[in-house]
Each structure stands twice: as C-alpha cells, then as structure tokens.
C-alpha cells in the first residue's frame, strides 16, 4: 500500500494553537516586548536590552518585597497545610453532619476576595472591630494601620481564614478515598492512631497534599486584592508584597519597561519554586 504524505492534519491543530496563543503566548510576549525596550508612548520603541532586568535585579525595593513575599508565603503554608490536614482528620466521614461541616468550611471560599479584605479591615479596626477591640481588651496593643506586627498578624490570619478550607477540602477528599480495609488491617496489626496517620493516611494523602501545597503556594505568592484592601501594603511598606510592588511600578510609576521585567522575573520565580515543590514532594515516587 502506498502511503500518502499529507500534512493537512496540522490545520486541525490550528484552533487549539490560536487559543493558546491568545490566552498565553501573545500576552506573555507583549510583556517580553516591553521588558527589552523603552517607550515614551506614540508606539515608538527603542531597544534597551537587559537594562530593565539588571535594574530590577539590583532594586532594593524589589528585594524587600521578595523577602516579605517569601516570609508571608512560608508562614501561610506552614499554618494552612497542617491546620487544614488536622481539621480534615477531625471531620466526620459519614452521617448527617458531613454535609453541614462541608458547607460550613466551604463558606470562606465563596466570599469575593475584595470582600474578604473589607471584612477583615473592619473586623480588625482597633476601635470598633471585633478582633481589634478584643485584642486590645486583652491588654495587647493592636493597631494594624500603625504597627507592622499587627498588620502582619491580620494579613496572615485573613489568609488562613480564607484559604485553609481549600487545603481542608482536598485533604478530606483524600481521606474519604482511603478504603476501609486499610484501617481494618491497621487495627488487626495493632497500629496506634499515630502509626495509622504516619503509615496509611499521610502516604495516601501525598498527592492531594502536593496539589494543596502547589495551589496555596502559587495563590499566596500572587496575593494582591485582599492585602491591598486590608492594609494597602502598609503601614509604610511593611506588607508590600510582590504584586503590590508590581502594580505600583507599572501603574503608579508608569514604568512599563521595569514593570515588564519585574513581571517576567516574578513569573520565573513562581515557575521555579512550583517545580521545586513538585520535585521534592514527588521524588519518592521515582525510586
């Protein structure tokens, strides 16, 4: 039989290619375009090479936001992952309370991000907010518009409130999927609750935990709305995270070149760290 050489099938890939191009490649390339050129408007561009990248990488402000961002994301992961897992372990697996619990824990996920910011903004007000007034009533000075510690505390607490549910739901789904036979075998083998957690639940939750860590890492590393509404990056710039810094540079200063370079560096950091988390958490599998 003769084989007909015909490359027309490539046309069938075109729709997908166009879609990917419009939602990923084109916007990304626009940013790349800005990052290596200088413009003063009128659609006039001048080649600037790696100037903007060098500028950003030597920018003290960028370094500071990056440090703050790393500390914030680190805190958020350290709190939300164990907390979500712990609550998931305590939740009932069957019975009428399951749906009640699930709806209750899922509520924070349904609140729009800027509303979350406003809620906590009001709640943490030292004079009228429940949280702010409460903490002050305990004799601990608390004012998130003045004290960096109070601001950080509120921002982290807000994120934990908003996103622990996501971790929790993922873990819960993972736990429910473990067949009963494992628990029965553990009972027969005389395993205590810790051994059950360590040798059955944790290994079986590995994949959902990886997903939870990746999602929480990416989202918290890009956090913008809630913080801008709550503290606006203040007091001073103590809660100015990368996105806030980026928006200030891009829109506030209209420094399109440096902002574009910033965006690309930002994107590469997220990409690299996601890869790192994924590789570290999955490395056992390969063996």
């Amino acid at each position: 039989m003769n084989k007909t050489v015909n490359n027309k099938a490539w046309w069938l890939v075109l729709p997908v290619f166009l879609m990917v191009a419009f939602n990923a490649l084109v916007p990304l390339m626009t940013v790349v375009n800005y990052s290596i050129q200088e413009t003063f408007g009128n659609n006039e561009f001048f080649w600037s090479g790696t100037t903007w990248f060098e500028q950003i990488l030597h920018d003290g402000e960028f370094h500071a936001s990056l440090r703050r961002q790393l500390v914030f994301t680190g805190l958020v992961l350290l709190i939300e992952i164990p907390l979500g897992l712990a609550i998931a372990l305590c939740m009932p697996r069957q019975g009428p309370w399951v749906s009640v619990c699930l709806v209750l824990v899922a509520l924070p996920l349904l609140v729009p991000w800027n509303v979350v910011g406003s809620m906590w903004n009001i709640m943490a007000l030292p004079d009228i907010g429940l949280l702010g007034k409460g903490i002050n009533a305990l004799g601990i000075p608390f004012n998130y518009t003045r004290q960096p510690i109070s601001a950080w505390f509120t921002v982290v607490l807000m994120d934990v409130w908003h996103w622990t549910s996501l971790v929790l739901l993922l873990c819960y789904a993972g736990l429910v999927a473990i067949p009963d036979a494992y628990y029965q075998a553990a009972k027969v083998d005389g395993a205590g609750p810790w051994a059950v957690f360590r040798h059955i639940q944790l290994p079986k939750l590995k994949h959902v935990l990886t997903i939870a860590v990746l999602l929480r890492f990416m989202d918290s590393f890009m956090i913008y709305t809630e913080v801008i509404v709550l503290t606006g990056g203040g007091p001073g710039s103590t809660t100015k995270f990368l996105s806030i810094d980026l928006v200030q540079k891009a829109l506030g200063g209209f420094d399109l070149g440096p902002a574009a370079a910033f965006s690309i560096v930002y994107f590469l950091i997220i990409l690299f760290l996601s890869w790192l988390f994924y590789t570290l958490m999955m490395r056992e599998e390969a063996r």
Partner: protein
Amino acid sequence: MAEIRLENLRHSYSANPQTDEDYALKRLTITWQDGGAYALLGPSGCGKTTLLNLISGLLTPTAGKILFDGRDVSRSSPEARNIAQVFQFPVIYDTMTVFDNLAFPLRNRGVPEAEIASRVGEVAGMLELTKTLHKRASGLTADGKQKISLGRGLVRPDVNVIMFDEPLTVIDPHLKWQLRSKLKELHLRTRRTMIYVTHDQTEALTFADQVVVMNLGEVVQAGTPVELFERPQHTFVGHFIGSPGMNVLPCEVRGGKAVFGGTPVDAANIGAANSRGRTELGVRPEFVSIASSGIPAEVVRVSDAGRYRIVETRSHGHTVKLLLKEGGEAPRGSTFLSFDPAHTQVYEDGWMAGAHR
C-alpha cells in the same frame, strides 16, 4: 492458637432489628477446632463477610458470644483478640519496604528488633519473598502484595486465627492456583487455625477440611467437601456446589418410594421422608446414568467439558443433567435414565428429609 466457638451469634446492621429479615447473620452456633482449615462459602451478600468481621472484632455482635478457648471475646478489640486478617484487596503500607511491612505488627507490639529480624526472615522464606525483602512494597505485583498481607498474619507466632476475605479476587487466574496451593502448604506447615471466606467453590473445597455453606444469613450446611458433595443437606448446597449443580426434581412420596413423573425411584433417605410440604428429589449429574429402562427422557444436547461430557435431557417436563465419561457414543433421541439409589435424596421444603436442622 485457639479453639473458636460461636454461640447463638447474631448480627444486624440496623440499630433496632425486629424480624429475622433485619439480621445479616441470623443465628449461628459452631465450633472450630484449633489448627483446622475452614472455609465459609456462599453467594455474595449471604453474610459471610459479616461473620468474618464479627470474629475478627471489626464488628460487635448484636447478640450471642464468641469464645476463643472458652474466653469470651465478643466485645474485645481486634488487637486484643490477637487475630490476623487478609483482605480482598491487598493492603500494604506503601511507604515501607517488604521487610518493614512484615515487621509492622511486631513493632507495634514492642517485639525486640533481633527477634523481628529472625521472624520476618523465616516468614519471608516461607512466602518466597526473601529476594524482594528490601524493596518497596508498593512496587510488587498484586499476588506479591497479597503475600505480604498474609505474611503480616504469619509473622506473629501467637495469632489465634488467620482469616481470609476472598483473598484471590484481584489475583491473575494463573497465579490463583499457585497462591492457593501455597496457602494449603502453609497451613500444613504452621498448623494455624485458618478461616477462608469465598464464593468460589473450588477455592473452598480445595483449601478447607470443613466447609460452612451460608445462604441468606444462615448456615445451610457445615461438613467436609465429600459430605457437601455426596449428601447436600439442602437443595441450595446441591445447586451451589458441583458443576453442573444437583438435579432437583419435584416428586411425590408414595408407598416407600419417591415418584417422579409417574416413575417410582429409590432414594437413600426415603425412610425419613414423611411427605409433608414440598417434596423434591435431588440427584447429582455424576450419579445419573443412561439405562435401558427406567425414567423416560429425551436427550436435548450434549456438551463437551473436557474429561467428560454433560448430557442435558428432558424428562416429564424437567431438565435432568448427567455426566458421561469421554469416549463412546453420545446418546441421542429417546432414552431412559437411572438414578443411583445410594446418592438420590428426598428433600422436604428444600431440606434433606431426616436431616437434623
């Protein structure tokens, strides 16, 4: 190791059982000797897994007692009962090596490491797992994993009973046979009490010294494979065991004979029959033969089953099957059947006449 005695054991999954229908296990009294190999055989949903979980302590009985060597353990935890169980799907601890998997039950009980190493080594040898001992358990095939589950039961020297819940379900057919003979061999070697739950008659009959046949939450018959085959106490056992199952034909009991469609037939237990209720005649295809006179029948089809042929006939509107050795001519058309009187039984309302229930 222990003798296991179940006294009037009942279990219901509903909180407030009213009628017999509410019970997954209706009522059971039985004694299993120390060191025996037993099988629980029955169709899906007959209550055999319930019974197994009651013995292992994963369920607490609604009523009745479970005694291990006379000690009442009905309310004890699985750990306190000191039993082992192999589940339908292989349960292994993914992150551990084969060695650690086998050592797990011992470590949980605080056995010294030196003893663990020697016990695990011995069990791994028996199960032919020595080569993979330091590999990760998750990398093994289904039969290897099932061997680990079994090994975790064998590794403790003081286990009262090892229970198997349809352990060959996920094993490839060609390995099933191997693993089954391995089990039998291990039983002979270790002389542990073993209870094997299955719906597969071949597995039950080849493994066990005594088979307990269950249906609808009740024990229908407990006996050796030969007893189950030759003297099924209930037509259910006759159907369920044997391939093809027993012929069950309606009959009348008249004048010391069972009358099937007008033809009088001798039956082994005819003396015990009192012609109350629905009377039936049970005879296995193995004990039916073609004769020159007797019960008139029409040959419907002959199918080859390897070493023998299955002849399907119609007699008085009922199907009667019989087995014929290979070779010789296949019967055709009208013929006569004869039932072996020693292996022909009368059943009343499903139960063998004269059987003590």
